[in-house]
């Protein structure tokens, strides 16, 4: 497949065959993970800027590892070390980065639309590593890849996304991608943490977790940002945990082989019980491993702009 996209801003840009091409490429890189020398010269001499204007450990490290395994030179630019803290505008940051002629920029930013803003101004590929509440396409791709690896196909499976949907770019991108791949998606969370206008989303919405988990094949817990309580969106964490925290008792109603996902970092005992996070059905660490190979696949496809002919 010839890769035609310049940027990855959201999964909505990707057709199902394109997603499958990403999975296939990621699958091939998986084998590399098991070698003593986990490095190939594919992107030797190419440079990737990791521009993280919002704190991140896993996504940034994952991209860093992915780039290095393909022999690309990766450069980090965090908000604290960028001129954004000196009042520089995002436009000027974009132009400055452009002048350094990178081959790709991975961007995370607290504003929805920031990746699109950069992509419109940069010649190199822009890969969205999370923009505000809008999109987190690489997380959605690695989540689906993890399930794809587990099941062979996500089509026909029922997946529950649980927690703070309103503020979650992970949820938005996953709803789009999972439904595109043929899965049935359910959402569950308190009304204060659900976005408006859900009627038009291709999902079933539940306010009762016991109902929501009935017969599901996977539950994707979202991290609860603790400041939501300060925003007045929740009475307190105890009540949230008792009402919407996923525990073993809920899973009695789910498919016996139910899988548990979480994009991390976890608030153990808040959105998910510790025992479930560490249980046999948990794919949380598989997600981390998938993250590296999916991001290797993305860097490869976007930076060479050609895939399998």
């Amino acid at each position: 497949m010839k890769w035609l996209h310049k940027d990855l801003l959201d999964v909505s840009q990707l057709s199902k065959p394109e997603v499958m091409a990403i999975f296939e490429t990621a699958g091939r890189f998986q084998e590399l993970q098991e070698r003593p020398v986990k490095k190939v010269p594919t992107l030797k001499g190419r440079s990737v800027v990791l521009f993280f204007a919002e704190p991140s450990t896993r996504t940034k490290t994952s991209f860093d590892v992915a780039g290095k395994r393909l022999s690309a030179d990766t450069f980090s630019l965090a908000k604290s070390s960028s001129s954004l803290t000196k009042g520089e505008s995002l436009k000027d940051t974009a132009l400055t980065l452009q002048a350094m002629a990178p081959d790709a920029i991975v961007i995370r930013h607290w504003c929805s639309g920031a990746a699109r803003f950069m992509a419109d101004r940069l010649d190199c590929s822009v890969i969205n590593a999370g923009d505000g509440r809008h999109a987190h396409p690489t997380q959605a791709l690695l989540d689906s890849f993890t399930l794809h690896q587990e099941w062979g196909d996500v089509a026909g499976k029922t997946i529950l996304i649980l927690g703070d949907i309103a503020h979650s770019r992970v949820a938005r991108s996953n709803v789009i991608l999972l439904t595109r791949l043929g899965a049935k998606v359910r959402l569950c969370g308190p009304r204060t943490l659900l976005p408006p206008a859900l009627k038009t989303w291709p999902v079933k919405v539940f306010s009762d977790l016991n109902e929501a988990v009935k017969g599901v094949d996977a539950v994707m817990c979202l991290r609860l940002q603790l400041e939501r309580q300060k925003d007045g969106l929740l009475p307190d964490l105890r009540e949230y945990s008792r009402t919407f925290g996923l525990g073993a008792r809920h899973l009695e109603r789910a498919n016996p082989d139910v899988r548990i996902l979480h994009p991390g970092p976890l608030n153990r005992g808040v959105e998910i019980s510790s025992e479930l996070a560490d249980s046999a059905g948990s794919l949380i660490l598989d997600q981390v491993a998938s993250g590296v190979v999916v991001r290797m696949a993305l860097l490869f496809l976007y930076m060479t702009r050609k895939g399998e002919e």
Partner: protein
Amino acid sequence: MAKIDLIVRRAKLGGKDVDVFVSRGKIVEVKPSAESLDAGDATVEEAFGLTLLPSLTDVHVHLREPGFEYKEDVESGLRAAAWGGFSNIMCMANTKPVNDNGSVTELMLEKARRYWPKGPRLFPIGALTKGLKGQELAPMAELAQAGCAAFSNDGVPVESTKIFRLAVEYASDWDRVVIDHCEDPYLGVGVGVNEGEVSSRLGLPGQPDVAEALQVARDVLLAEYLDLPIHLAHISCRKSADLIRYAKARGVKVTAETTPHYLTMTENILEAEATEYDALAKVNPPLRPEDDRLAMIEALNDGTIDCLATDHAPHAGHEKETEFDVAPCGITGLDTALSVTWGLVRDGVLTRETFLRAWTTAPCKVFNLPVNTFAPGDPADFFLFDEAEEWTVSPSTLHSKGKNTPLLGSVLKGRVKTHFIAGKKIV
């Protein structure tokens, strides 16, 4: 008969060719064009092929001076008004310092006199409360004496209903109308995008239409209770229009305005391929769904909404070329309002009568400003307009310093060719 000093010849007015006779800044007579005419000493303006319209009045403009002259100043704002067909503009108080004392009002008026001595006329709007903070009443007597035509905390909703009530009552002592910025102070203030399908998809925190309608409901109930007028600024949604219609049917003294952008644009602009997340379309209240746009047209046509106003909100380019969350709200409007709304007349969406009422007679009646209806004795405020001329909206074709409009790149039809205020040519 007074000595005629200006004759406008063969202009199109309401489908007829007319000659307009002006003396000492006032309309003397408008009559069907004569083949021959003894002009005497009068200046003759040949208007063949051009449409004659009375000058417009904009009751909602932000001129940014003092304090933010890099966005707009009195000189550039009045220039945009002159070319945009406006003879009267009212400018809001959210300057820096705030127009909450007579010195600021006088500064604005002095600048207007210095740069545009023949008009457009500037009518400053004083703050309702000191510093727009919503806590203490502004010195409205001083402000009225200095030349303020109305009072408003536009830009910042007055949180306390008690203070707002006192402001409406106190303003009435000086025979001034209060203009309210209709926005519940707790429901998504100034976020610049409607809460709904589009904001959910884009992951932007939105402002629901009820944020506006709640404040409209408060205001119509207060206006009825106090039996005092309140003018409702920049109405954008059906819920507000329904409340205003209900209030007017009960005889409540509320009046309202909407803007050209709520008549012609919707929230969908923010998810269109070319304009996704474009902060040029970030405005407060936000652009709403299509049903609200249609409701604004209905409400304007049936008189529920009295006036059109631009809510001209100029910003510097770098302020808008940024992340959506960070960009300020506002669309520049003085340059484009006439072409946009005349386009609605041309398309049969608005009648010519509605257009004239909304841009001329109604705003002047609400705020007691000079109005030209082409009756003898009216101020000779009018412009000649080439309905067919096409122009592209671009930084170079806009006279305002503010180039921040989602219309950039659009081709509009209709251009002011000549503009007279009180019989004096200003453009």
